[in-house]
């Protein structure tokens, strides 16, 4: 029995900022104080507020320490854990108001969140199956196997309105129904989990796997029962070592407790799960390519139909759902379809996890009901754009999505609304951009990604994205004409219509959406040969205002290209001659500008 639990975040974010050292320091200090039988140190999954990592929470008080360093630990142990005095200077400042410490749930970041998929992340120890069981874990599987028919399970999932959280938003219940009913020949069927999270900036699936792996295992077993499958595969990228390790531990523990394997709960239902590690190819997140990869072949998509529900893995009926989709299933079974359908908008039910990144104060994971506006997410939960800069756009859906301009900030976010404004939900990456981001450059960044990751099977994607990238490159170098813009748009629609898989079909979206909302920026690049945000190097020129220059030579010493030299001109009132930049030699690194104390250097 422990009187206090100290939770230390062991997600990837906090681990990389040193949470393991925090745990070690805590354990040794607690032992030194002789409290090892009174205070438990628990490693949990992600709390979501990754920007403030490493994070440590002391219960029962619920004190939220942020950006903890190992050298703070002796003081926290001797003051807080021994004497009960909270060490305020290390506590997350949003929770401190005067002498009072507010619960973390009342801060701006957490107040508007509602956690379903992430409910256990940061609360339980993911490497201890009993902690999952304590939060009603495996109760849904028990209920399904002992009280419900497969048809009833599918009906509940259908009625809940759950849609695929991987991005496309296909109704999960429909998928299960097809896999159950379309082929009934008694042969094997498969349940797959897509944990090949590939969108730049998205990390919710990783956090679920790291923080609550059993939720995914339980849901896969439920899905197996519903469609009549006895084997599941989780396809997870090898770049997620912590997630892979915790999944392995979870699968082992589930076997030991008889929650996977033969005759689960004495119902006669057998279910087993294997891991398959992906080598990090973006295309393997596409369902048909993922299955091809599990089969042991090169990860390339195949045409649909036939859909996986009819002919999927090893040519057998297969369902494939995303990690976050599975993370909702057990809760829907336990709390009922009506509870889930009560959240969200008319066509998009439940909650959605977003990974906030880019120019935003609170980088991290947030889970909000569908229909929350982008403004609430960016400004209230995310804390807005830092350094007083102006919000320019939010990018959702990764390389398949688009940029949302400020005028659409008040659109309630759901699958259909995002499509209508030219973006898409995608897996839920949300990258915020400010006035310093060039939209042409952003489109180019995503196209560069798609070109790299195109599997090469179909021509529209293999060659089309490459040509698209070249056109964007031409624009950022100031060599394009207005005719190129039209040609580019035409090519976008061609790729959309003709690519083989979803990734190719959506690859032009970053270009189309920026063209739609930020055409003036494209025109500035093409006609005026200027980059308004000052990002595209070829269009920039650095100049020294010779009257402001004091001749201190700081810039010239910083310049790696030796492009800055002293002139003969001495400004009125100065003793030393001013400097000038030779634009032919200048590599536009900007080092001179940041080093000048007199703000004499400007870029255009």
């Amino acid at each position, binding site marked *: 029995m422990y009187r206090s639990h100290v939770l230390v975040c062991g997600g990837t974010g906090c681990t990389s900022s040193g949470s393991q050292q925090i745990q070690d320091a805590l354990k040794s200090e607690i032992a030194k104080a002789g409290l090892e039988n009174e205070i438990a140190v628990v490693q949990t999954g992600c709390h979501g507020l990754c920007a403030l990592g490493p994070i440590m929470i002391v219960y029962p008080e619920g004190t939220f320490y942020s950006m903890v360093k190992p050298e703070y630990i002796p003081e926290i142990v001797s003051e807080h854990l021994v004497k009960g005095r909270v060490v305020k200077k290390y506590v997350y400042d949003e929770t401190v108001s005067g002498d009072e410490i507010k619960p973390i749930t009342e801060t701006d970041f957490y107040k508007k969140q509602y956690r379903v998929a992430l409910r256990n992340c940061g609360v339980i120890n993911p490497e201890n199956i009993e902690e999952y*069981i304590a*939060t009603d*874990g495996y109760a849904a599987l028990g209920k399904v196997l002992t009280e419900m028919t497969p048809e009833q399970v599918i009906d509940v999932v259908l009625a809940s309105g759950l849609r695929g959280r991987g991005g496309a938003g296909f109704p999960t219940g429909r998928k299960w129904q097809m896999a159950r009913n379309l082929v009934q020949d008694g042969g094997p069927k498969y349940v797959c989990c897509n944990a090949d999270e590939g969108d730049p900036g998205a990390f919710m699936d990783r956090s679920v796997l790291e923080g609550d792996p059993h939720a995914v295992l339980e849901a896969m077993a439920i899905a197996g029962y519903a469609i009549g499958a006895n084997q599941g595969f989780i396809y997870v990228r090898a770049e997620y070592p912590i997630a892979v390790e915790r999944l392995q531990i979870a699968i082992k523990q589930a076997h030991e407790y008889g929650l996977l394997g033969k005759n689960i*709960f004495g119902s006669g239902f057998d279910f087993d799960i294997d891991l398959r590690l992906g080598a990090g190819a973006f295309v393997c997140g596409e369902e048909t390519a993922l299955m091809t990869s599990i089969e042991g072949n090169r990860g390339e998509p195949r045409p649909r139909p036939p859909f996986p529900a009819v002919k999927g893995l090893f040519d057998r009926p297969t369902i494939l759902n995303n990690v976050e989709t599975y993370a909702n299933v057990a809760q829907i079974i336990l709390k009922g379809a009506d509870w889930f359908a009560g959240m969200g908008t008319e066509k998009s039910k439940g909650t959605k996890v977003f990974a906030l990144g880019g120019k935003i104060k609170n980088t991290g994971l947030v889970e909000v009901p569908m229909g929350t506006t982008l403004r609430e997410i960016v400004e209230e939960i995310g804390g807005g754009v830092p350094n007083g800069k102006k919000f320019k756009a939010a990018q959702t859906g990764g390389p398949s999505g688009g940029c949302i301009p400020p005028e659409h900030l008040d659109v309630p976010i759901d699958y259909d609304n995002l499509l209508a404004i030219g973006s898409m939900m995608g897996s839920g990456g949300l990258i915020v951009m400010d006035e310093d981001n060039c939209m042409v450059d952003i489109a180019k960044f995503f196209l560069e990604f798609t070109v790299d990751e195109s599997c090469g099977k179909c021509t529209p994607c293999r060659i089309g994205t490459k040509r698209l990238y070249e056109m964007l490159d031409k624009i950022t170098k100031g060599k394009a004409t207005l005719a190129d813009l039209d040609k580019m748009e035409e090519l976008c629609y061609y790729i959309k219509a003709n690519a083989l898989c979803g990734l190719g079909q959506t690859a032009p979206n970053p270009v189309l959406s920026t063209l739609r909302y930020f055409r003036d920026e494209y025109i500035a690049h093409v006609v005026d040969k200027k980059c308004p945000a000052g990002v595209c190097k070829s269009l920039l020129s650095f100049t020294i205002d010779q009257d402001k220059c004091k001749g201190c030579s700081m810039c010239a010493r910083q310049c790696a290209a030796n492009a800055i030299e002293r002139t003969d001109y001495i400004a009125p009132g100065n003793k030393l001659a001013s400097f000038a930049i030779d634009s032919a030699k200048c590599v536009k690194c900007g080092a001179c500008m940041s080093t000048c104390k007199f703000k004499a250097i400007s870029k255009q």
Partner: protein
Amino acid sequence: MKSLAELQAIREKMQGQIGIRREAQCSTRVVVAMGTCGIASGARAVLNALSEAVIEKKVAGVAVVQTGCIDLCQYEPVVEVFADGKEKVTYVNMTPEKANEVVEKHLIGGQVVTEYTLASAAK
């Protein structure tokens, strides 16, 4: 795992242990003063007795927490009970045995153990 009953047993066993991580649902806070004075007069044993009893007896909605010196050094170990909508109760000169009694009678039974309170000690 052969049956739902076994699952239920694990759940109940573990719920008591991780229950303290859900502070938001606690309507009662039992605060043990753990200044130097409190620790010297045995507050740690009182704190442990309280939290163990609360977990073992599955008393819902109660958080056992510690605080620093509350300036009643001559009465240490001191335990304060804050319940939503009720007046604060201060227990003084506590021992683990008294603590168990307080859990039994006050936190579970709802009856303040008046003989251990500051009011009766000050008389």
